[in-house]
């Protein structure tokens, strides 16, 4: 069984098509591990209790089990977005991207734990307990998609779906030593994704390697009539196959690679830059003048949109209801009891930013900053093919370390937020280890440059030879 777990999704798909591995066997191998996790990593909020009804061996993704972040609606299966206010909620429909992947052959292994309503960078904000990092269980896996990242890193799932709003795929991927990709905004349908921030949320893959990321992404993209903000992806997502980086111009933004980056992370970053040059890339510094303000703009825009998106949780039609003397009491007590501290904080921040007298100074200004950030990237991409940064300023920090300091927690996103504001695609690949903990390397490109991104990431990945097996433990048992 342990050797099945060692296969990447692409390898397993080939073996299933070839007939020497059965989809049912593969599913069961993972299902047992996922179900056994329990409180160890606490990566799952729900695990399938048996094999799926009709695995599709002839479909492109050939019955490969998929772990899906809790906030994706899956019909008849709990979809709670990590929140008490939706505890046990089973939607009557399935998210478009999950349905597309099922049609392509994936099978639903389980729903993964996450920061409540995707708000967080450590997965300590879940109503269902924190998730732990498989590299060191006293540390966080990152967030908000911590469960998906931990599951893939620990070999509890071959791949997983997450969502990225300000870094919620890339940062946990970095902290857990796996691959995570945030696509161009609009490339993947948001229909059925329990919303956090509408103009920023995007679904994306967590995988063990870049090839798997490309494979999963290929079946996720596409315009959806149910999502007005979705677009057709021009062309197809290709499986990467480069051997070097000759002719590739990499830019290193000064504002995102300066102070605040931990020394271990910086060392790994610089080593990867040197490797890229050896592979033929040109590497130069560049400027993104408004990047230092991206985080501030993000922490106005995202909470503002979230404050409206979460207004539907009012105890009327679904979810938690706290009975009270009157309607106002029902509303306020339901939401007080149902939302965690971070969610309440962001709802308050967002409501304030939109409120009468404050709109222009806060939300209005933040949207202008957003324009400037996008302009900065556009200008940079006239000189460079891709920009590169460390994914996270630090390696995985300890559980509880930043919980009492919201501002410190928000700063974890400093390298990932600018790309989210601009709506451009970005990928994180593991590029080293610091004090025994994985470090992530981020590449980003212009809108719809996913193929170029995957290709460059692949070349680097092959050259780096990062070994993620420590997180999967010896003999297939969890570490």
């Amino acid at each position, binding site marked *: 069984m342990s050797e099945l777990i060692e296969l990447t999704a692409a390898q397993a798909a080939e073996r299933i098509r070839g007939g020497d591995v059965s989809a049912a066997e593969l599913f069961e191998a993972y299902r047992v591990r996922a179900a056994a996790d329990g409180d160890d990593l606490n990566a799952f909020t729900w695990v399938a209790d048996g094999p799926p009804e009709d695995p599709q061996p002839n479909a492109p993704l050939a019955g490969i089990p998929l772990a899906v972040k809790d*906030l*994706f*609606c899956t019909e008849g299966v709990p*979809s709670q*977005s990590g929140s008490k206010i*939706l505890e046990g*909620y089973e*939607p*009557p*429909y399935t*998210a478009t991207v999950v349905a597309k992947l099922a049609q392509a052959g994936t099978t639903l292994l389980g729903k993964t734990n996450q920061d409540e309503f995707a708000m967080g960078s450590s997965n300590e904000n879940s109503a269902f307990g924190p998730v732990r990092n498989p590299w060191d269980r006293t540390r966080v896996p990152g967030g908000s998609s911590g469960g998906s990242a931990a599951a893939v890193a620990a070999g509890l799932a071959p791949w997983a779906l997450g969502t990225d709003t300000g870094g919620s795929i890339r940062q946990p991927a970095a902290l857990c030593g796996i691959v995570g990709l945030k696509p161009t905004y609009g490339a993947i349908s*948001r*229909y*059925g*994704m*329990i*919303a956090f*921030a*509408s*103009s920023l949320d995007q679904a994306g893959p967590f995988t063990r390697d870049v090839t798997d990321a490309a494979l999963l992404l290929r079946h996720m993209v596409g315009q959806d*009539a*149910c*999502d*007005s*903000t979705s677009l057709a992806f021009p062309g197809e997502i290709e499986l990467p196959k480069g051997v070097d980086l000759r002719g590739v111009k990499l830019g290193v933004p000064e504002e995102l690679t300066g102070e605040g980056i931990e020394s271990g992370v910086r060392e790994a970053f610089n080593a990867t830059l040197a490797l890229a040059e050896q592979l033929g890339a040109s590497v130069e510094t560049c400027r993104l003048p408004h990047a230092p303000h991206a985080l501030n703009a993000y922490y106005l825009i995202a909470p*503002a*949109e979230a*404050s*409206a998106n*979460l*207004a*539907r*949780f*009012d105890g*009327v*039609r*679904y979810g938690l209801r706290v*009975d*009270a*003397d*009157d*309607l106002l009491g029902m*509303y306020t007590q339901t939401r007080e009891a149902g939302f965690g501290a971070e969610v309440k904080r962001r709802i308050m921040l967002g*409501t304030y930013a*939109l*409120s*009468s007298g404050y*709109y222009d100074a806060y*939300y209005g200004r933040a949207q202008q900053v957003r324009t400037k950030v996008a302009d900065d990237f556009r200008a940079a991409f006239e000189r460079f093919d891709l920009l590169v940064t460390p994914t996270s300023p630090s390696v995985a920090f300890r559980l509880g370390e930043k919980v009492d300091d919201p501002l410190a927690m928000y700063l974890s996103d400093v390298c990932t937020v600018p790309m989210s504001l601009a709506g451009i695609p970005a990928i994180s690949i593991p590029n080293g280890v610091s004090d025994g903990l994985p470090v992530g390397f981020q590449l980003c490109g212009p809108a719809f440059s996913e193929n170029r991104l995957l290709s460059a990431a692949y070349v680097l990945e092959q050259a780096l030879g990062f070994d993620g097996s420590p997180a999967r433990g010896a003999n297939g048992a969890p570490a």
Partner: protein
Amino acid sequence: MSGPAYEPVIGLEIHVQLRTNTKMFCGCELSFGDPPNTHTCPVCLGLPGALPVVNARAIHYALLIGLALGCELAPRSIFHRKNYFYPDLPKGYQISQYDIPICSGGRLGDVRIHRAHMEEDAAKLVHVGASGRIHGADESVVDFNRGGTPLVEIVTEPDVRSAAQAREWLTLLRETLRQLGVSDVNMEEGSLRCDANVSIRPAGSDVLGTKTELKNMNSFRYLERGVEAEIARQIAIVQSGGDVEQETLHYDPVTGAISSLRSKEEAHDYRYFPEPDLVPIVVDEAMIAAARAELPELPAQRAERYERDLSLSADSARQLAFRADLATYFERALAADGEHPQALANWVTGELVARIGDADPAGCKVEPAALAQLVALVRAKTVTPGAAKQVLDTLVEQGGDPQVIVEAEGLAALGDGDELAEVVQRALASDPDAVEKLKAGNMKAIGPIVGFVMRETKGRADGGEVTRLVREQLNLS
């Protein structure tokens, strides 16, 4: 009433439910009267993860409305979220339009339009009564069938100056929208809803007074009475030295009382921001052309045209313009014989409608050309009006040619020939009393004489001619 005169200043806010097949942002069918919660989906229920998608026909109807009202159509407009909590609002925000509405400016009749924008309707909240809850609050239930119905909200400038004018103008708007085919515009069913913003000011002033908002008047009559009552209330306040407070009010048609719906402190902070789940609406030439192609001639323009080109009275013009089927019939009749437009109009809106009621005259047996011919016969005094009515009765029943019917039924007018003179003689002979009074100078006594003659001639005598003959035969001056 002593003291300075006050002028009412009224603006109207009208919500029009559109007659599309499906809701504004989802494919649920529109319904009226179906069992509760049988036309819902994740989108209009506000389920987690659901997203809105704009109904193309709703945009088309909004453009039709904009063109009909002479509005400027925004080349690019966006939707906004209007945020507040209420059980009939499933998302906790309404998707509406804020500072860039699809239509702005315009005019209908003598009232200018400020703007018209698109939004979704709220669900239906029904108070049920005592709940039996431990906590004692009353119970209400929500039915989401109506939630998400496309609405166009039309806001006028404060150009209306009386309750009667408000009612009159709203009638014109309703007829215009009905002829556009964009809405059922039925106030009782809720597809047309009207709120009034009312203020007063000293006559002659051009400064606006504090306005109140009068809501939930669900018939034309209640609207007129409510506005009247509010004007009176404001005048009374100001005359006794007080100030009108800005508030939202409700008019109770049964008691005539005006009560407060919301106090000032409860004024909402809607925290409007652009709707991130929708993309802008760009109105291009093709969309405008498609809307223009569907525009019928609308009541206001048609009435104007009749007055101007046909010299019809304002009243006749309005009556015809407000019933498209009558107007169409009238114009076909006019095409057959355009000599007497006013007379023809009178016959269409008078005698014809009296006989066929609300039915479309195109479906009745009176051919437009036939009616036109009948009118010509009356104008030529070939037939008396009275006799003509009988001819019309026959036409309604069997159709046909008026000339033929006149001859067949012997209804030709009696001219100034011997036959009439002979009947007048007999009439006078039969009523010596009347003759005496007439000779004494009391012309009113001619009534029974004329009556006798009409009966004898089956209405074919011309009243004027009878009078002339009576004077002649009695040697009256």
